[in-house]
């Protein structure tokens, strides 16, 4: 059974009296365990697609089944339940609550799931350890770097063991090395069996997926499978390059000092 199955999804908006077709007949199937990158320029409908896949929005017409459950006609409350239990969101701007620590942020989805305090704490700590932040569970978002904040957000997305991890431009606010580290984490999670869907407009990021779906004008224009680039390797290369650069810089500095000393 497919994890995501859509049929003729459309989404219309009214914008200043004009009808805009943000999605225009999208039929797509994603199996459990895939790593899909959704690409397209802004206005192509990829964000609208992601909102509907994430049950944040409902299609104007068409069908969408998530893990066999028809969700396109569910009520607001029922959709909230689906988001809570089945989907983990990662956003470009992290969307962490500044006034609570990392642990509190990760616990949030479980709070809405009605989990008890002790269980919540244990699970949140486990997920924070999984994303490499076991030492910083009591740091507030303002005390964390961008990459660390995004890791907290990923831990939060994973905490209710969702069937789908949905990331909207997850590296859009990060530098290139931190982006590689985050993509490495996604690839690891994918290898552990999580279905990952990343929306991005950066081809470099899409390279790390097994499958790339391209949107244009509300339609799917291409859907290709590829051999994913290994993010761990890319990160190691980048670090090696940067170490080499650092060594070069150090040598140059040393030479400069020597010259100054000689003078």
């Amino acid at each position: 059974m497919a994890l995501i199955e859509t049929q003729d999804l459309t989404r219309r908006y009214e914008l200043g009296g004009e009808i805009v077709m943000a999605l225009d007949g999208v039929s797509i199937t994603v199996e459990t365990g895939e790593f899909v990158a959704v690409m397209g320029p802004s206005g192509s409908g990829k964000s609208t697609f992601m909102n509907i896949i994430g049950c944040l929005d409902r299609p104007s017409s068409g069908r969408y089944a998530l893990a066999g459950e028809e969700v396109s006609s569910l009520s607001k409350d029922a959709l909230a339940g689906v988001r809570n239990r089945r989907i983990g969101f990662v956003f470009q701007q992290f969307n962490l609550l500044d006034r609570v620590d990392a642990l509190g942020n990760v616990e949030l989805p479980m709070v809405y799931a009605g989990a008890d305090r002790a269980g919540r704490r244990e699970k949140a700590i486990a997920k924070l350890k999984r994303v490499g932040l076991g030492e910083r569970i009591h740091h507030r978002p303002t005390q964390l770097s961008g990459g660390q904040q995004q890791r907290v957000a990923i831990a939060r997305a994973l905490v209710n063991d969702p069937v789908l991890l949905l990331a909207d431009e997850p590296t859009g606010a990060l530098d290139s090395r931190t982006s590689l580290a985050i993509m490495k984490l996604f690839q690891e999670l994918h290898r552990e069996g999580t279905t990952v869907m990343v929306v991005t407009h950066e081809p470099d990021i899409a390279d790390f997926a097994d499958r790339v779906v391209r949107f244009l004008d509300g339609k799917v224009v291409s859907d290709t499978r590829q051999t994913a680039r290994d993010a761990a390797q890319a990160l190691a290369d980048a670090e090696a390059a940067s170490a080499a650069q650092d060594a070069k810089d150090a040598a140059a500095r040393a030479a400069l000092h020597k010259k100054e000393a000689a003078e």
Partner: protein
Amino acid sequence: MSLMEAFRSALEALRAHKLRSALTMLGIVIGVAAVIAMIAVGGGAREQVAAQIRTLGANLIMLTPGNITAGGVRLGAGQASSLTSDDAGAILADVPAVQAAAPIIRSNQQVVAGANNWATQIVGVDLGWFEAREWDVAQGRLFTPEEVSRGALVVILGETVATNLFGEQSPLGQQVRIKNVPFEVVGVAARKGQSALGQDQDDTAFAPLPTVRQRVAGANRANARSVGSIMVKVREGEDMANALEDVRALLRQRHRLQPDQDDDFGIRNLAEMAAVREASASTLASLLAAVAALSLAVGGIGIMNIMLVSVTERTREIGLRLAVGARPRDVLRQFLIEAATLSAIGGAIGVALGLGAAQIVALKAGWPLLVEPAGVALSVIFSAFVGVFFGWYPARRAANLDPVEALRAT
């Protein structure tokens, strides 16, 4: 999300904006403090009036002689000598609703004790007076019936008179002279304090009615049995208006007045006067409380204002909460609880502040501090209700946000 959870989350959110939360709370604090203080002050004032009325004695009818016209000059009420001791006796005997009828003669005299003297009102009374006014002695004893009927030279001093003549010494058994007649002090009357009209009720001295009539006030030539006034006490539970009409009818019959003739006496229900004063005190109290309640409403509007700002500012947070599985009603509850928490904490501080203010006012004004627990409970509940009421609209707005739009907000 459990209620405790929601409450903790609300506290976190309020702590995130301490100054703003404190200022918003201030509106409620002032409102509740004002309500509490005004209820207490109004209640104290009313209690004071009621206490004054109690010192007068309940269910009293005052009878005064009518006016007289002498050679075209109309003298004021009370100048005629139309009331007599016998009238008082008849009222007590013939009107079943009457518990006591006390004939009184008043005379302002200088009271002398050794080197001290003091001008006061000497009231000639019989034992019915003490029953009617619910007045007893603090020291010594009341007159005996025999002393009253024989016109003995005995006197009961009011507290003010006793203090002025004898200071710290006990006046019991001492002699005082009134109009050069020696009287023995047999008692000191219990303290009554100020009357409803502000007179010192303890600045007085009592002597048996015949004594005052013959030795102090000077006998009335027209009628040897006449008295200055008669105070009638109606039994508890009897209808005052009916009793008053019965007394009037009896007196008219006794005075042989024809139906077309006016009363030759004045008759007044003292309770009515008291009721008017008490009513005006109550009105004042309600007015104060109403004004205070208005300020509480203004505080509520402050809460609404800040909650609206908060919802706008935290649109992304709301979007996130919706994304991770909050239902609209969870968001609604979160903001309602924040508003209610603000106003409930403000209300609690306001109660403390209001009680303090009431205490100060009570001390300064010498009133009893009268805080009804019901009033306190009511204003705390009301302030929480204010929070929920004024928090409803902003919370509703938050709950109805579209998750996609909310997440896109900056």
